[in-house]
């Protein structure tokens, strides 16, 4: 459609495609985790678009890390709650 720059969601797909061989050699149970990582990166597409980083993988890795950080914080909070309940 006359676009010069690929839309970020396509960039995301291309990046995923680039990791296809890597994924193929993973164990099946690990593949599912890799898929989830890429999905996590997709949750912050708008930030990737806005940042317009020439190396999109950087933005994607940052988004994956972000989701990890969120999960970690949730777990830590939950753990704290459980420990308090126990006491």
């Amino acid at each position, binding site marked *: 459609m006359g676009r010069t720059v690929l839309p970020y969601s396509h960039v995301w797909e291309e990046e995923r495609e680039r990791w296809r061989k890597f994924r193929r050699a993973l164990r099946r149970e690990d593949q599912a985790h890799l898929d989830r990582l890429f999905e996590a990166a997709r*949750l912050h597409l*708008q930030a990737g678009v*806005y940042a*317009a980083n*020439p190396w999109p993988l950087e933005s994607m890795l940052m988004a994956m890390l972000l989701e990890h950080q969120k999960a970690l914080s949730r777990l830590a909070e939950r753990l704290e709650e459980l420990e308090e309940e126990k006491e």
Partner: protein
Amino acid sequence: METVGWLFDVYPLGDRVVLWFLAPEGEARRLEDVFPYTVYLGGPWEGVRGAVRVLKARGWLRRAYASRGLDLGSGEEIPVWALELKTYGHLPRFRGWLGKREDTLAGYNCDLDVATYYLYSRHLWPSAWYDLEARDGRLVTIAPREEQFARDVSLPPLNILGLGLTKDPLVPLDRGNSLTVTWEGRTLELEAADRAGLMREVAHWLDRADPDLVLSDWGDEYIIPCLWSWSKKHRVPLPLDREPGRVTRKFSGGRTYFSYGRVVYQGNAAPFYGRWHVDRRNSFFFREADLMGLMQISRLGQMPLQQAARASPGTLITSMQLARAMADSILIPWRKADPERFKSAGELLTVDKGGLTFMPPIGLHFNVAELDFASMYPAIMAFHNISPETVNCRCCKDVDVGEGGSHGLEARATGAAGPLPPAPHPLPQPRNSGTQASSLCSTGKMPVLPDKGLGGGRGESAGRGGVTPPLRPRRSPHNHLVPEAGFRLCRRREGLVPRTLKPILELRECLKAAAKAGPPEEAQLYQQRQNALKWILVTCFGYLGYKNARFGRIEAHEAVTAFGRDKLLTAKEICESRGYRILHGLTDCLWVQKPGLTEAELQELCQEISRATGVRLALEGVYNWIAFLHSRQNRERPVATRYFGVFADGQVKVRGLICRRRDTPPFVRRAQEALLSLLAGAATPDELARIKPELEGLAAGFRQRLGEGGVDPQELVITRVISQPLEDYKVDTPAALALRQLHEAGVQIRPGEKVRFVHREGRCGPKECRVQAEPFLEGLETYDTQIYMELLERAVTEVMTGVFGDANQQEQACLTAAKTGPVGGRRSLWRLRRKED
């Protein structure tokens, strides 16, 4: 003789322009006006004089004289030669001649439609009242009795004749189909023994009713071309036109083209002369905004109504810009030579993108409100003065915009003594319509544009004495420097696009306010008119970036999206600082969540954001609940444009669901809509849980009806657009099979047109029985229950999982996994691609 008349129709005939007026009592009157088509030639003076000599020698010119006009790019006055062509017929020849000399001569105003050029030049607009003076059928003087952008309009009585078909237009008129005529509230089927008889019947009705408007279904594409060719063949006169002179008609058979990834078919046009013909099936604006909307755009676009009815919103906005340019004495370049500036890869990466799209959290949410920027892109263009000639303009090249952000810029603008207004609105207003409209509209209660209402005062007070304005935006919008891109915007001249847009934006706000205030029957008319304007505003942004657009330039387009992203993020930041959580954001709207949010508090928030961004943010509504759906391919992946919710007043808002798709069979659509309207009654989690059994009962009812087999085939019709000719279909898709059926029956369907069919015998049956195409549905008794059951199930699942989540995931997994699969399904990204490895 002096009279009052309502400008009804305009068209060129020979070397004259014919105008039709309606008197207040409704009678039609024909007047002629002399209007020589004037083109302008610019370039090196010697070359131009030589060219004029050659053209004079060829006898193409009536008159030639030296003149002056404004150059669109620089805004400077340039000398040109004005050439009046002898007749309108000389225009194509002249263009052919000029085309070969484009490198030495610059042609202006060469490719305007004669009727619209006439309207622009005389400052006339259709569908409005005028004081007229005429002599011997010639127009002597004409003066408008009302404003072009008036909020309230009046019409003469219009005599309307309906024209339609009894069957699908694919069935020919002399083989089972017949014509219907609707007049004075009654519909009659025309009966005739043969073609000539039918022609006489039609002629009789046209004579008897003498309609001002023939409102047809399929008139452009089928009825009129067919009747016209029969009329020629059987020598039966057909009084389609009021024009007594000779008019010619050609029906080329339409054309198919490819636009934005879709194949589109554009059919014939069959306008009448001195009478209107509008084909409801061939008029985007009639569909969207009815007759009232059509008159509105014909008036604003200064384009004869029949042309406007068949035009796209893009053509209309271009026409408005042309009219504005002509009114401001700007010369219209023939072919634009304004290539895109070079950009580095990094710059391109930064600016070549659209609006921001967030990913909403999947599932059901309460305490959510939706905030929308009102006409965001047009408002940005008007507020920041974005136009092809104002982006990186030559005239402000040397003005240092400073490094210190908005403050530096403002200080500089304030200190400057020259004509450098700090805010876009005090720029010199063009001659007429704009100012008139604002004076008309500003009497209303509503603040019309943020730069006048909410942010008002800022520009002027800062400009005069540097006093701190009372309503200082928290973050002053950076008016003359585009965020991200860093383009400069002109500070001396107001651009053509903003000048065109401002009165439209203001009128639309007025109409919206009037629609809210008035009684229902009046409100509807205002609503139709504002709806027509909405489409024009929606399109005008796209036309900035469209390579064929006359007033388009990619940098202007990029500037608008860059401002848009900045404003959405500013809004997000303000919302968050006030304790709201951003659930979702989409280019110009935000969905925010906060426990116990109230409307008053939200209104205040909107005002604050409007002030900070310069674009009015409006509260679309507070939701009782809203559900964001996951992608069809992957249930863990959110999508930005699939959601549904219920506002506090019970209104349902649905996007991206099956019932919104055009190809969904009516039965499935109705089923989904029934579920949604039942859901609309429940506001709290408890209420939702309580009606779950009822919803399931409703769905079961639909399943049962479908399973029993008694559903009317019309309810099961699936519509598809044909993308290629029959011979190019390699796979027997249902659409291809339907196309073949029609082809075998002698019906031609061109790419871009639609086929409608019913699944008859499943995916494995004999090919000729799998689908049944319309119009061969009569008497069809069986249909493929399984395919429709799957469609129904998808519609039900969409709604149920949206609200109740994947609690019954096991069940649904069985239903949908086969089709889509979670990861690694048929459409998965991981699927092996052919070319690699």
